[in-house]
């Protein structure tokens, strides 16, 4: 019984981690924008959803996979997965920039109050979701299997399935790359400067519009990567998939401290694990209750989340 429990616990941890990394990447989309503009980009959940569709389009329409196709192997598999990742990231990145240009920039330049972009974001979220609903007839869209979900062995009794391993490893690489980007590159430094003090950054010659677009792009790219991982793991999507995952990732960002890259990382991982353990030990019906009790409890002691809200603290 005990060994059975240990096996399950290890398996749950692997599953929870891979779900957690999907949350991390979406949470980064929220947190980057918040860090710079102090604005919650509610349409980020739809940016994610469009990323999932981009992946399925590449698999289904570019490579012609169907539900009856044999999964790809070897170099061809790597090539397809890489293209899917790029397509998904580009779709979400470009959509993010577009959102900023269309829905937020004018409001920001006109010096609107803080609520106007919030409503604009909710509006864009609804527009994007409804547009996809019409395109897909409100139906779930299944992704053909492109990769055999092989087991790479076991680790403390947990099966290390290929898709979970890819998500965890690639998610970690993406997160570290983003941290380095924000820490070391010129644009990254500008993002941090604007995040610290917008007026001072402008006086120092930082091009605010460029930095904001760059922030939306980087956030969108991370969210798009999450879209690819989601399809790789769950092999389906639908127009309303962003809502639940968006709320979860937003919760993760708040838990870790929104505006803080490190916070998005630990918040996402914690939420993925917490959801999975709570579902197993208390019953799936208690998952949301447990997550939000923990969130309220954490915020009670740390009102700005575990790591506060400074984009300047990037190192995990």
């Amino acid at each position, binding site marked *: 019984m005990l060994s059975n429990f240990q096996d399950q616990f290890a398996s749950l941890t692997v599953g929870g981690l891979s779900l957690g990394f999907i949350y991390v990447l979406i949470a980064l989309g929220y947190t980057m924008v918040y860090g710079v503009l102090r604005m919650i980009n509610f349409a980020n959940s739809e940016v994610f959803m469009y990323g999932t569709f981009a992946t399925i389009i590449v698999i289904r329409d570019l490579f012609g996979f169907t539900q009856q196709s044999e999964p790809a192997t070897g170099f061809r598999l790597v090539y397809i997965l890489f293209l899917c990742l790029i397509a998904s990231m580009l779709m979400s990145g470009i959509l993010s920039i577009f959102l900023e240009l269309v829905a937020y920039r004018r409001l920001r330049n006109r010096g609107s109050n803080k609520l106007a972009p919030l409503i604009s974001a909710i509006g864009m979220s609804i527009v994007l979701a409804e547009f996809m609903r019409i395109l897909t007839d409100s139906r779930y869209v299944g992704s*053909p299997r492109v990769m055999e979900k092989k087991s790479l062995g076991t680790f403390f009794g947990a099966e290390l399935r290929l898709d979970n391993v890819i998500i965890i490893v690639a998610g970690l690489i993406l997160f570290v790359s983003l941290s380095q980007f924000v820490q070391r590159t010129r644009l990254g430094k500008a993002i941090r400067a604007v995040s610290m003090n917008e007026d001072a950054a402008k006086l120092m010659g930082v091009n605010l519009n460029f930095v904001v677009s760059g922030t939306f792009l980087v956030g969108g790219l991370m969210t798009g990567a999450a879209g690819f991982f989601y399809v790789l793991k769950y092999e389906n999507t639908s127009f309303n998939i962003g809502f639940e995952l968006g709320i979860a990732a937003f919760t993760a960002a708040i838990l870790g401290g929104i505006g803080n890259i490190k916070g998005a990382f630990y918040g996402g991982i914690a939420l993925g694990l917490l959801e999975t353990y709570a579902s*197993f030990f208390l019953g799936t*019906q208690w998952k949301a209750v447990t997550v939000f009790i923990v969130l309220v409890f954490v915020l009670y002691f740390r009102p700005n989340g575990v790591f506060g809200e400074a984009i300047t603290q990037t190192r995990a």
Partner: protein
Amino acid sequence: MNERQYMKKQRLISVAAVIALAAGSAVAVAPASNAAAKTVTIAYQGPLTGEEAQVGIDELNGVKYAVKLFNAKNKGKFNVRIVEIDDQGSGTEAAKVAPGAASNKKILGIVGPAYSGATIASLPFYKQTNLPLISPSATRVSITDPAQGLIGFPVFHRIPVTDRVQGPALYKLATRGVSSPKVFVIDDQSPYGVGLVEYMKLGGATLAGQDSVPDKTTDWSATISKVKSASANVVIFTGYYAQAATLFRQLRDSGYTGVLAGGDGVLSPGILTLASASILEGVRLTGGTVPLAEISAKLEADFKAKMGVSSGTYAAESIDAANIFLSCISKGVNTRAAMLKCVKAYKGKSITGSALSFDKYGDTAGGVMNGFEIKGGAIKYTGAVK
């Protein structure tokens, strides 16, 4: 009025027109084809868009087929039109569209609603306006159970048997041929899913484990761990097909090799587009329906020729429901009150050949639960579950 005000007014009018058009699109009327004949209107209500759209479209095609045959047979005498009411299979949507259908006095009867939740949300409006309903697929027991407060009486009727029959039948089918079955049941927290499990237990099912999962769940790892902890060799999901596809796929990926089963919520060709044939191979399903092809190959061929598509789930029940209204129309019924009286007194034959009539509360007399299995990427009928 200056130019600016005028423009503003024009814009408001066009916005209002767009909104009116959008609202009207939920209740679209088929064009009349025979002006000389007496035009009579019936309606279909079910999910025509949304996740469950396949079910509604299949049922609507059944109704259209029956009406097409009737109109051809009664050319010059009657011209029956169908109003399409899209409730997306949800109670919330149904409560929005039902008042419009209820107040449309031309509608003498509705085939539907397809789903029980949508039925319960619609019923107050239809009861108020005495609008008769015959559902081809709403199977929740409470709608016709006098002990649970006459929810559907007197306007509601249905063709299939209820979940009181389906619950135990699903358990029986899922465990058939399995030596020492250990059954794990997962519901989707919907009244349908939870109810089906309750009736399964009332029917004497013994369960090795159970989970109740929100209907938007995509990550099943915790549930799968529970299935494994319980060493289950039979997993029954009492929800709908879109979720069933993700659950079944993740279960098989986790190495689970036992039986997979589901109720009539999973019985939809839609599931075949969401998971590969190898994952779905052997999935056992129940449903109160009988495929047209099983009734007769000729019937299915005729359906395909006239409708341009193969018949889907609940086609036979939809045709039966429409035929009852049509037989009343042919007797000259032209008010809702007369239609209700006629439906209640109806004694005829189903296209399956069995006798068809309703009891006092609207349940069909007789009726069986059928079994299905997914084989080679297609849903195959395996006979009645006895």
